[in-house]
């Protein structure tokens, strides 16, 4: 769309999905980021910056969300605005720390860019705060990331939050154990990622499975709740569930009490391999952030190390804090 240029007007548009932040709001955002930064620093996570623009081929290697904004540089190379910080930090670790002794701990406060439909708490340019813990395998690394996450949220003053904890490979493992071919399994996983249990049920009905097996494949991804719900998950899912229990067993009580197990949790980024998690607060209808294990990602950049991380959406955290405040 071309904008009519009028020398007399003072109103000049900004792109869809972006916004200005003025001082009153900025003070509140600063309170949040400073509280979070304090926790990250204390827990030994060093802050980094990376360029907002990266080579598209480098981002593509990581397999995160596809970039929405691309430009050509002066050599005709395609550059893209980053869609998360996990892939740039994987690049940074491989490039700047090719021989450093793991574990490595990094944190960031950075804007990322996605081609989403702008709505409450979701812009196309948005600020994320997060950590990446590189070279620390499950369950200890996962437990450390969850602890840092809860300490950071508590430090902002957020009270009602819970952490949904699941496993990205769980449903795939379950499907294989019932002899479902991967090509068919892809459709089922797609339905689960789309949060469409009606499609999942009708896809399962088309497979020639025992009624009991089909019921199990529909029921397991709907299991969510406290530790007692894991007692129901026997048989083929037992291994993934045992992994979640090990993580949970390492958490301090104030962190463990925040955890809701969710055997259907499927995050839509391609690089997750094991435990995945999301942050929920009753004051907002969308997750405040999330993360998980990505044990294969660093290997794609030539430095195979297990890793885990999370990102919080600062705007969403702000809305949830304001919401909790108005409820009391």
């Amino acid at each position: 769309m071309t904008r009519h240029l009028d020398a007399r007007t003072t109103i000049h548009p900004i792109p869809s999905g972006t916004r200005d932040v003025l001082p009153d709001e900025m003070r509140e955002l600063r309170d949040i980021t400073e509280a979070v930064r304090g926790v990250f620093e204390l827990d030994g996570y060093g802050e980094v910056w990376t360029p907002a623009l990266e080579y598209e081929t480098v981002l593509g290697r990581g397999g995160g969300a596809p970039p929405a904004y691309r430009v050509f540089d002066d050599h005709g190379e395609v550059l893209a605005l980053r869609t998360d910080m996990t892939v740039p930090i994987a690049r940074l670790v491989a490039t700047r720390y090719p021989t450093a002794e793991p574990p490595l701990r990094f944190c960031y406060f950075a804007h990322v860019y996605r081609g989403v439909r702008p709505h409450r708490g979701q812009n196309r340019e948005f600020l994320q705060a997060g950590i990446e813990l590189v070279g620390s395998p499950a369950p200890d690394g996962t437990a450390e990331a969850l602890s840092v996450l809860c300490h950071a949220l508590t430090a902002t003053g957020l009270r009602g939050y819970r952490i949904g904890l699941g496993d990205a490979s769980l449903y795939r493992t379950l499907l294989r154990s019932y002899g479902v071919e991967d090509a068919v399994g892809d459709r089922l996983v797609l339905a689960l990622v789309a949060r469409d249990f009606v499609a999942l049920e009708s896809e399962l009905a088309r497979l020639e499975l025992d009624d009991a097996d089909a019921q199990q494949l529909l029921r397991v991804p709907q299991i969510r709740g406290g530790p007692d719900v894991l007692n129901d998950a026997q048989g083929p899912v037992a291994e993934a569930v045992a992994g979640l229990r090990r993580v949970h067993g390492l958490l301090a009580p104030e962190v463990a009490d925040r955890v809701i197990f969710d055997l259907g949790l499927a995050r839509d980024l391609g690089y997750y391999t094991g435990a995945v998690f999301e942050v929920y607060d009753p004051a907002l209808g969308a997750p405040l952030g999330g993360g998980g294990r990505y044990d294969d990602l660093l290997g794609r950049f030539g430095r195979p190390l297990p890793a885990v991380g999370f990102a919080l959406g600062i705007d969403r955290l702000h809305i949830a804090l304001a919401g909790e405040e108005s409820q009391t």
Partner: protein
Amino acid sequence: MSLGLTIAVPRGALLKDTLDRLDALGLDTSEIRTNDRKLLFGDIGVVTMRPSDVPTYVEAGAADVGITGKDVLTEQPERDIYELLDLGFGRCRMIFATVDGPDPSAEALRRLGVMRVATKYYKTAAAYFEQTGRQAEIVEVKGSVELAPLTGLVEAIVDLTATGTTLRENNLVIREELFVSTARLIANPVSHKLKAAAIDAMLEKLRAP
């Protein structure tokens, strides 16, 4: 009594069946049936609205769960919500129709390379013709879609039909069926986790025959 959930209920064609199912859950819906001006029924946790607004309220968390048609969900594919259950009622078909006789849309495609299609379901229609490899100019209309092919505005329509009576009365014939739509139970993704027990209890009762 309430179920501890805020439920977005669609006014219009799906209302009666929806209220019958809510009655079976133990909610007293008599006031909704008698008062069609009131929108908010706080004592039983019900808010009533147009079916196409239900995903908006549920996605934002202003309602924990909601009931709306698959036609609405297909038209709003970007909504971040859980689709939990096919409730079976409100059955109707999304169809592609033209006037009876030689197919004017095929003739338009053959000679002009593109057909014009009127619909209230812009995204549904655009996605369908893209998937089936046909070029279509989608004309979005708000009122009676059947009028558009009779006046020469378009060669075809994509619309929802339950009985087909309106199509027949306007000399229109169904050429293709896009999908069958029924009422669905949807949930907010955060409520689905934080109010899991209440939502699962509701699901279980709704599944019971």
